[in-house]
């Protein structure tokens, strides 16, 4: 039986009546904001002339740094992020000033009248450039377990490699939006599309020089967030509030898509270099790795993003000895920020590349290497020191991960399909230029904010005299169904129907000092707080019920079906109990609070037990790659994911499938491209491609793990927002599998990839059937592979010196390399179809020859 309630706003969504900040009708007299943007990525800002703009029709204010009464800073952790630049431009298109005018068109016109004097400076636009010039934010982070160097030294096999991945734009459908007004008492009211109303409140107060209690922030709902409105909304709220204070008018800012993409941060690009030691069985012995993230011009949330990447390089695999260093490249780009997974996806990407490297090196099935390295009894301590629990590794049973893995292996028909794929690839004929690939990958993801103090939540529940209920909690609704789940929690505790309960807009006036709705923790934290508040109220109502029904303490009460039932068979309707409590002058509102127990994190050693529990899942993907064009198609996906005892299976499945699609986009088609001036070239959906329905296979089977109660969580459920994004790594690995089949001919498993995924049509294969060598109608895989030149290219605009391109000859030698290698693409799957697979394997994969194969 599906206990899923539909999304509490579903009717509003489908009828268009659900309101968002972006389309909130503005009262008459509201001013609109429009930015003046920098033509340089890095420059000395010498002067700004706003006189002509101020005189333009409809203009009420031109905001520059000089207008800020408080602190000119929006940095959430480190105060290194100016709201408006004073003397330094730090990234291309940075807003230098904002026009407040009566219409958007007037503001846009006036923006063109602002003139500036700037002295352009050399811009740092890549991780490589940052390394070359020593341009980093903060300290290098170190995370060690055991003696990794010694473990690698003692290993039978050692490989080295490098993995890169590019940025990803959040592409929430509702762009950043804020609406601010000042009331007669000077109180600032802000409606904002924000995942973190408390922080928005703090930043507005900081910029205006006010105390927090002088600013209220409300979030109605967001048209998507994905981490992109965790800190990124704050600055726009502050600008609207600043303009409102300055003009006395209500002020709205809603970004055009182009501005949103040019002004706001994205998922971090990473470059990760590794040395890995392992045994002939494929068991990992030691890992040394350096992770460098492109943080952009300011820190924002980059330190915790980097740390989450570092603590997730294990994925589901036991790493006996580890030595990690992590750095944040400081570049003249938008400030990279939170994005679903928060560094986890990059960490897991490295983990999956590691096991894939081992498998290809040993010529063993990758799925076997994966399962072999899973955490297990006696190998249960993560590289940061947290021990897996009896829930992860139950006594006398397979581990939670293995249970998922084995079940999916069975459910997804892995074994017969692997054979079918091999047959398909062997049956290639000259008319068919396609090969297939199949891959299964696991996900293990730590749940809780690494920073212990963020793991708290509050709620305020109000029962009105007619028995209707309002819930307020600190979490925000961005489509993930948090409000729906919170209503379910309240309904279960109070024993009433969900139709009597409304979840209110998130407001700093109802719950103070909230944490961001982030880290997949929204339901975990706020659910416990809502539950606590409802339990307090239920207790008061039970006491009143005892009085009403004349029951003593020996009679048990329980709330269900809109009533309070006594174990002696009597009962009182919920609404009657409420009215009785009101008449008896009982308090019918209560706050609830929750702090996740048992967490620890040492920020010096980067060790501890930062996670309340781990989320698990696995995915099996099959793809078909066209060797002539590099186009690929996802044929089928099977997912088994662990959400504990789901609070709402329909919502959880939606989260899993949506996250998978977003991960698929990150790994295969979404490409953020900056040109050599640091200007973003992909700032609209015409140039930045997220998946459409056509990229999602019809055969898409999502299952929730059964018998998966998680102890200590809200009704045994588990977080779901982020972990399934990384299930999409199975697609990347399946594409690699298919590409290997091209190089393979009949026997070899080979080819690599060196860097991160780019979907293969960025690289090219020429797998033309050589007609001259035989009957054109017959299949001849050997000639296919032997006749092919090995050619791989990056898709780099040649105009960008930092985006080099390289082509390898079929002996693996690099023929040409312009500048540096791509830092940014999500992909760049190198299709190598070599004459001598081993040579390519060595050269492309950069395998050390320290130990012979």
């Amino acid at each position, binding site marked *: 039986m599906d206990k899923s309630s539909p999304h509490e706003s579903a009717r509003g969504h489908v009828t*268009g009546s659900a309101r968002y900040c972006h389309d909130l009708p503005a009262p008459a007299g509201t001013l609109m904001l429009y930015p003046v943007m920098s033509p340089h990525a890095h420059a000395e800002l010498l002067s700004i002339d706003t006189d002509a703009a101020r005189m333009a029709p409809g203009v009420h204010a031109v905001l520059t740094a000089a207008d800020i009464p408080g602190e000119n800073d929006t940095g959430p952790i480190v105060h290194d992020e100016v709201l408006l630049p004073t003397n330094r431009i730090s990234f291309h298109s940075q807003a230098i000033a904002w026009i407040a005018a009566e219409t958007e068109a007037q503001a846009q016109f006036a923006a063109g009248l602002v003139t500036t004097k700037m002295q352009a400076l050399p811009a740092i636009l890549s991780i490589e450039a940052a390394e070359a010039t020593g341009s980093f934010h903060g300290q290098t982070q170190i995370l060690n377990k055991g003696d990794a160097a010694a473990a690698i030294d003692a290993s039978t096999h050692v490989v080295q490699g490098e993995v890169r991945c590019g940025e990803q734009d959040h592409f929430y459908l509702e762009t950043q939006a804020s609406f601010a007004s000042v009331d007669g008492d000077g109180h600032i009211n802000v409606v904002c599309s924000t995942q973190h109303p408390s922080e928005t409140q703090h930043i507005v107060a900081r910029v205006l020089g006010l105390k927090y209690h002088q600013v209220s922030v409300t979030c109605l709902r967001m048209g998507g967030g994905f981490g992109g409105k965790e800190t990124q909304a704050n600055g726009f709220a502050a600008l609207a509030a600043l303009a409102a204070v300055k003009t006395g008018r209500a002020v709205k800012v809603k970004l055009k898509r182009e501005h949103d993409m040019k002004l706001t941060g994205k998922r971090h690009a990473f470059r990760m270099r590794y040395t890995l030691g392992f045994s002939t069985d494929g068991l990992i012995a030691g890992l040394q790795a350096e992770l460098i993230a492109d943080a952009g011009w300011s820190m924002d949330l980059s330190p915790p993003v980097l740390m989450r990447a570092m603590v997730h390089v294990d994925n589901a695999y036991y790493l006996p000895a580890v030595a990690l260093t992590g750095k944040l490249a400081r570049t003249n780009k938008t400030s990279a920020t939170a994005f679903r997974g928060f560094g986890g996806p990059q960490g897991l990407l490295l983990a999956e590349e590691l096991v894939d490297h081992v498998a290809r090196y040993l010529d063993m099935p990758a799925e076997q290497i994966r399962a072999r390295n899973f955490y297990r009894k006696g190998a249960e301590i993560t590289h940061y020191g947290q021990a897996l629990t009896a829930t992860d590794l139950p006594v006398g049973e397979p581990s939670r991960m293995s249970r998922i893995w084995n079940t999916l292996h069975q459910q997804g028909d892995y074994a017969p399909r692997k054979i079918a794929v091999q047959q398909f690839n062997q049956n290639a004929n000259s008319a068919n230029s396609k090969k297939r690939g199949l891959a299964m990958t696991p996900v293990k993801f730590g749940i809780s904010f690494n920073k212990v103090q963020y793991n708290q939540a509050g709620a305020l529940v109000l029962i009105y005299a007619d028995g209707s209920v309002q819930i307020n909690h600190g979490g925000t609704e961005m489509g993930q169904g948090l409000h729906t789940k919170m209503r379910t929690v309240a309904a279960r505790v109070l024993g009433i129907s969900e139709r009597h309960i409304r979840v209110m807009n998130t407001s700093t006036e109802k719950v103070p000092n909230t944490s961001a709705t982030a880290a997949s923790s929204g339901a975990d934290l706020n659910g416990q707080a809502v539950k606590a508040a409802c339990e307090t109220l239920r207790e008061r109502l039970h006491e009143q019920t005892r009085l009403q029904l004349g029951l003593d303490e020996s009679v048990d009460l329980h709330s269900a079906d809109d009533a309070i039932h006594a174990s002696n068979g009597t009962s009182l309707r919920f609404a009657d109990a409420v009215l009785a409590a009101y008449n008896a002058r009982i308090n019918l509102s209560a706050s609830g609070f929750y702090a996740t127990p048992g967490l620890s994190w040492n920020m010096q050693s980067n060790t501890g037990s930062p996670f309340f529990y781990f989320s698990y899942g696995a995915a099996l993907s099959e793809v078909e790659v066209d060797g002539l064009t590099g186009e690929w198609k996802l044929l089928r996906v099977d997912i088994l994911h662990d959400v504990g005892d789901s609070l709402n299976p329909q919502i959880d499945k939606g989260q899993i499938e949506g996250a998978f699609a977003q991960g698929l986009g990150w790994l295969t088609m979404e490409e953020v491209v900056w040109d050599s001036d640091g200007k973003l070239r992909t700032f609209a959906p015409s140039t930045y491609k997220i998946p459409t*329905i056509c990229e*999602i296979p019809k055969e898409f089977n999502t299952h929730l793990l059964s018998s998966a109660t998680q102890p200590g969580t809200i009704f045994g459920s588990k977080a779901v927002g982020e972990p399934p994004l990384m299930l999409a790594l199975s697609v990347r690995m399946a594409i690699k599998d298919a590409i290997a089949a091209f190089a393979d001919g009949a026997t070899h498993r080979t080819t690599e990839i060196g860097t991160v995924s780019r979907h293969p049509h960025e690289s090219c294969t020429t797998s033309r059937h050589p007609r001259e060598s035989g009957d054109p109608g017959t299949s001849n895989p050997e000639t296919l592979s032997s006749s092919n030149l090995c050619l791989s290219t990056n898709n780099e605009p040649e105009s960008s010196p930092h985006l080099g391109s390289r082509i390898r000859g079929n002996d693996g030698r690099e023929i040409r390399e312009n500048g540096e290698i791509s830092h940014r693409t999500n992909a760049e799957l190198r299709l190598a179809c070599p004459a001598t697979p081993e040579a390519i394997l060595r050269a492309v994969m950069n395998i050390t020859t320290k130990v012979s194969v």
Partner: protein
Amino acid sequence: MNLTANNSLKITINQQSHVLQSSTLGYNETLLKTLHKLGLQGTKEGCGDGDCGACTVAWCAPQKTYADDDHTLPARYLAINSCLVPTAQLAGSRVLTVEGISQLSAEPAALHPVQQAMIDCAGSQCGYCTPGFVMSLFCDYHANSLSDLSVEGNLCRCTGYTSIRQAIEKLKLQQPNPIPRHPRAGGDPGKVSILNQTDSEASANSLFLPTSLSEALTLKQTNPDALWLAGGTDLGLAFSQCGGATRHIALDQIPELQRLELTERALHIGGAVPLAGLLALLESHSSFEPITRMLHWFAARQVRNRATIGGNLGTASPIGDLLPVLLALDAQIVLAGPTGERTVNAADYFLSYRTTECKPDELVLRVDIAKPKPGCNSQSYKVGKRGSDDISIVSSCFQLGVDANNRVDFARLAYGGVAAVPIRAIAAENALIGVSATDDLLDIVKPILLSTLQPLSDFRANAAYRQQLIVNLFDKFLREQQANLHGEVHG
């Protein structure tokens, strides 16, 4: 030309007729902005670019666009992007928004079946894209043509689409009621020409809506700075992003440009025929497969419902998906100007980057394409970064004919995305003439293609990859045509 005295626009939105005065309506104001002014906030702006579909509304054209002008037939609503189209261009049309479709049901409070299905299947998460999905589904639901492709032009960032697909499958099982065809409530479009020539301020960004070819050509002569506006799916970006401060002559309501005819010998496509109409005709006759195939790849549903072949030839993008197909099929482009009509071969039409043989005072009246002669085989190809709704990295169309001796006697290799204009590889074509079809044709053309076509690198792909595609797409064509090319010899 017809000018109204009160300078107003009539349009029916959600069964309610609106007269929008010029004092409140900018001539180039988009339909999306007008809807928001009317308090209809349900239609969302996601990109203002025509690429995300959040602003999708259902549009019923005011006059004969297809051969279904019979008033006994149900109304035919098409999904379009309201962010790209100036409201004034839709004079006389009927528009339904997400707020309006539940009104169509018998019970006022009831949801439309597509709305109910989206709720039942959890098709919404954040809900911001949902109105657009609902309207795309609404159109195809009533046209009995629901499939995944109904929403190919709608981006959702939350659901991963599987739940939306479930809603589609559920709706496919239902029998839709026809949408009642109301009398033309929008008024006579012929009398709604949006212009006040005496008002110089207003005329600076006027939108003309001529109702005959001669009127259009005369308007252009008296307003030489005005731009032709066909479907507006490219030019519309100016309205959406910049407010569109130029004058336009919209070609929606000119019967001469609406001809669409498939005869025994040729295909005639009027300059202002929406590509969706062309696609429907060709699909129903299983004819001109290279055009059909390319049209499926041509942007998305909402764009094809407005975009025209005249607009495609007018903007003359070097990529312009359909343009290499016209080149390979030897299309004849008929231009109309003040001195009459003239016909230009597609091969002579593209002069330089976005410059064509079409003079400023001319417009594309129609395109004529003869049916390929027997023995000729043709096909089109497109590679983009994303398989659907994307701009080409390289698009191409090939045509090969063989004579009785199985020697190539006709060759066309046409490409988009590889030069400043859509281009034919004429040297490669010439090299193939007279060659036996069983020879390795690829080996013959490969060095010529690589030496004559030098594509650029950009953010979509680099030059090396484009070069490889130039060769490999022809390779793909040859592989697919293998049976045809060898048929004569091997029997």
